[in-house]
């Protein structure tokens, strides 16, 4: 029941916000996101860290097609839920005034669409029926489309269309595989979309491969991975930083989440069959993303492209099939969410002050706005994996697992650390140091309040990743057992 409440709260909130008077709409929206946060914490408290699907609820939805309204969370699900409910209020606060600026579609629309997006994302992370997952997976696109198209810089309409076409294309390819699963289950005598029913079927290897391709294409576009990443840069450049946080830090996680749950969970043989190709694509994403990021002049575009590199790491961690890699990948998903959110939001505050997103036109900000520069530096250092900040832990785990997989894979992946230091620090140097803009107003208390929790979380999980690892390890154990990989103790 708690999971249904968790989905309904923001959904109701979106409707109420859309129809409430302009003066209070933002408060109403924030209130609902706060209530969702509370509900998620309640759910997390009920969750037992020892693995398996929990808090499950199952109702028949469409009998004729064997579709169920079935929810449940495992360790991966609960972490993604928590990440979502924490980031949404932060995004709403950050967009408090910005979304009302002239040229945008108004704060009310921004708050309502954001809550709708939150509801759909939570449903994605809790769905345990493949068709329900698909439905809400696609449904996230509509709020995202209107958030991109309605708020941000000029040219956003085109970016929104590009985003939607890419995602729908991936989704429709996946639809073929989803239907394929249904046909497989029907041939097995029990037409059903339920994850637990499907996992019990022994799908023949050739069918698995076709189904895998469909799922993987969709998740690769979502994640995004090279070569289907090109929507990412345009979208993050044109949309508001808040929207980018929702897209990159929450929605894109659906890609890697789906790879773990559907590709590895339902199609283990095909996942192993595809490993060489996926690992190469992941390595290309890691290196290519970092290289392209170095060359960017637009702050938001740069941060967007760094995510390509990070998602490469996550996918690499998933597809090396070791407990270190799997744990590292899931931890990476959480850390990337926090660190990238910090980067986007600081950059947003910076752009609002300087009036430009061009790195070339900035400089010397740290003199007049040291607090802003400080947060920017923390975000940048987190991106390049400085020890003591949480991304370091996950990045190390993935790289170690990559070396275990094959020394060459590890050697290539490790290059990214150098490149990351280059893009992060060089961006800091060009925007914050040296001569340039004078008299940039520093962050006010509200803005510090928005950023501080994120920065604190980076430091906290940098030193104490254990609570996260305790939740992650059972999932990785179960997933790898399903794939049939023998393994050692669940952590480094």
């Amino acid at each position: 029941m708690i999971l249904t409440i968790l989905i309904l709260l923001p959904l109701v909130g979106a409707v109420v916000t859309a129809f409430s008077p302009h003066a209070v709409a933002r408060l109403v929206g924030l209130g609902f996101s706060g209530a969702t946060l509370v509900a998620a914490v309640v759910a997390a408290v009920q969750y037992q860290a020892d693995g398996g699907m929990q808090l499950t609820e199952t109702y028949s939805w469409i009998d004729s097609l064997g579709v169920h309204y079935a929810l449940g969370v495992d360790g991966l699900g609960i972490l993604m839920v928590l990440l979502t409910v924490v980031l949404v209020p932060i995004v709403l606060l950050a967009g408090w005034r910005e979304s009302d600026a002239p040229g945008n579609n108004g704060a009310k629309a921004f708050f309502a669409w954001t809550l709708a997006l939150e509801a759909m994302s939570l449903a994605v992370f809790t769905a345990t029926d493949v068709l329900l997952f698909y439905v809400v997976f696609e449904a996230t696109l509509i709020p995202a489309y209107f958030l991109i198209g309605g708020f941000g810089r000029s040219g956003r309409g085109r970016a929104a269309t590009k985003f939607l076409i890419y995602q729908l294309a991936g989704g429709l390819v996946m639809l073929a595989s989803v239907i394929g699963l249904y046909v497989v289950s029907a041939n097995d005598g029990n037409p059903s979309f339920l994850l637990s029913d499907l996992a019990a079927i022994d799908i023949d290897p050739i069918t698995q491969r076709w189904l895998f391709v469909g799922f993987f294409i969709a998740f690769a576009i979502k994640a995004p991975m090279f070569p289907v990443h090109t929507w990412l840069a345009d979208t993050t450049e044109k949309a508001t930083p808040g929207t980018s946080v929702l897209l990159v830090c929450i929605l894109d996680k659906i890609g890697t989440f789906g790879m773990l749950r559907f590709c590895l969970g339902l199609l283990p043989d095909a996942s192993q069959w595809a490993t060489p190709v996926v690992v190469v694509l992941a390595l290309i994403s890691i290196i290519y993303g970092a290289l392209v990021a170095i060359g960017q002049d637009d702050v938001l575009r740069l941060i967007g492209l760094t995510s390509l590199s990070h998602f490469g790491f996550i996918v690499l961690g998933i597809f090396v099939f070791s407990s270190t890699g799997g744990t590292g990948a899931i931890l990476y998903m959480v850390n990337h969410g926090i660190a990238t959110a910090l980067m986007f939001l600081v950059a947003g505050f910076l752009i609002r002050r300087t009036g430009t997103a061009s790195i070339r036109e900035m400089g010397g900000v740290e003199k007049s706005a040291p607090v802003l520069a400080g947060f920017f530096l923390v975000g940048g250092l987190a991106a390049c994996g400085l020890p003591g900040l949480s991304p370091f832990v996950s990045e190390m785990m993935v790289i170690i697992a990559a070396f275990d997989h094959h020394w060459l894979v590890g050697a290539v992946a490790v290059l990214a650390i150098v490149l990351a230091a280059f893009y992060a620090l060089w961006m800091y140097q060009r925007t914050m140091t040296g001569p340039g803009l004078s008299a940039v107003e520093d962050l006010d208390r509200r803005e510090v309040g928005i950023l501080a929790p994120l920065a604190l979380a980076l430091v906290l999980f940098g030193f104490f990743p254990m609570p996260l690892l305790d939740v992650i390890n059972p999932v990785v154990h179960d997933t790898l057992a399903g794939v049939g990989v023998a393994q050692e103790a669940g952590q480094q």
Partner: protein
Amino acid sequence: MIEFSKPSIEYFELWPLLLVFGVACLGVVVEAFVPRALRYLTQVVLALVGLAGALVGVVLVARDVKTYDDGAARGVLAVGGTVAVDGPSLFIWGLVLALGIGGILLFAERHLDGGLSAFAGQASAVPGTDAETAAVAAQREHTEIYPLMMFAVFGMMLFPAANDLLTMFVGLEVLSLPLYLLCGLARRRRLLSQEAALKYFLLGAFSSGFFLYGAALLYGYAGSMDFAAINEAVRNDVGSNSLLLIGTGLLSVGLLFKVGAVPFQAWTPDVYQGAPTPVTAFMAAGTKVAAFGAIMRLFYVALGADRWSWQPMMWIIAVLSMVVGAALAITQSDIKRLLAYSSVAHTGFILTGVLGLQASDQLAVGEITSVQAVLFYLTTYGFATLGAFAVVSLVRDAGGEMTAIDRWAGLGKESPVVAAVFAFFLLAMAGIPLTSGFVGKLAVFSVALAAGAWPVVVAAVLASIVAAFLYIKVIKVMYFDEPVGDGPSVAYPSVLTATTIAVGAAVTLVLGVLPGPVLDLAAVAGEFIR
């Protein structure tokens, strides 16, 4: 030696059909005897009551209809075996009648264009002459449109229920002729409208010729027009196979023309664009429903045993329709033409369901059947199309409806509700989840994949991506583009159009969220009877 005997007519099972026919005839009488001032009201009320009564009749008949031949199917062969009142027939009757009610409401709309309907004041007046001006000044209008539409509805009910080739041909003609006429009756842009009517008539007559020729050849093959007898002949493999194949091919031409499948789609954009928008709405929805009913009956009932011969043809036509329809729709700059090409693509999607025919022993218990999938898709498509064209009739400028897509820019700000509803219909057509279109696509893709037609499903998925681009393009224009000039203006409709749109949107939403009951209904409808 042929003996003639008087057929027994099953009045109870047929009364919805007969009621519609009776009301249509009564409408003609009304034209002749009721004073001009009262005709509009009389005709509209008569038509609505007739359709609603027939709809009630369908429900009553459906509750009472017997199991046929102790099998899984239910129904009755009426009028000496020429009309099959079975589950699929009744489902399609109900659907056609519901769409017909929506059509009448749109026909009767007089608020959008200064108190006049969308139809010509005096069809016989040459465009641009004094006679036309006089007719407009006198606020004349043709109330014959209502009986004409009732005849079309009658045809749409007879067509899918026909159980032999001749009855099917009669149904085809009865549904087509009134539509040819209605297409030419637009008040605005009359030359375009008349051109559309002529084009539709000439090509339609031509395709009817194909149908008749095919019927003759099939008669030559089987020695009977009756579907059950043809099925027997096919099973026992009597006669010349080439007669069967050529006959099947020619019949397909006639039927596929009606649904606008590639390569018989050329009339669709011109006719959809030229016809008065209420006619386009009704025709696009109703004809497709009826014609797909007929296609399924002919191919499943008469030619089901020969499906290895016709399934490959359907594969090719389905793929062509989806790809050509979606690709050409992208290049359109007129919203009605765009929807016309998108309907061609939808024809392909429905054909994907039609070719998913499997023998019942190949299906798992509870697995969705192709009849069920196609009937469901037709329901979703019918209501979304009716609603979408109804919205098109609202967006206007001084010259009447404004159908150029780039002039729709800024509609999202000018009229958020109209833009949102239209965007919703477009998303349904694109097959986005939580709209009916998604469940429809899911159903037809499932049956096609289960029947092993995976290349068609792959093509369908690719075509869906192209089609999605097209619908999103229109949404982008409405919401994110800057208006050209004054921007679009939205006419406030009366309760008639508003009801049609609201019902269309509601059905589209409900079938997207809770499709269970209608899917079950389509499952209960069961199989065709012979």
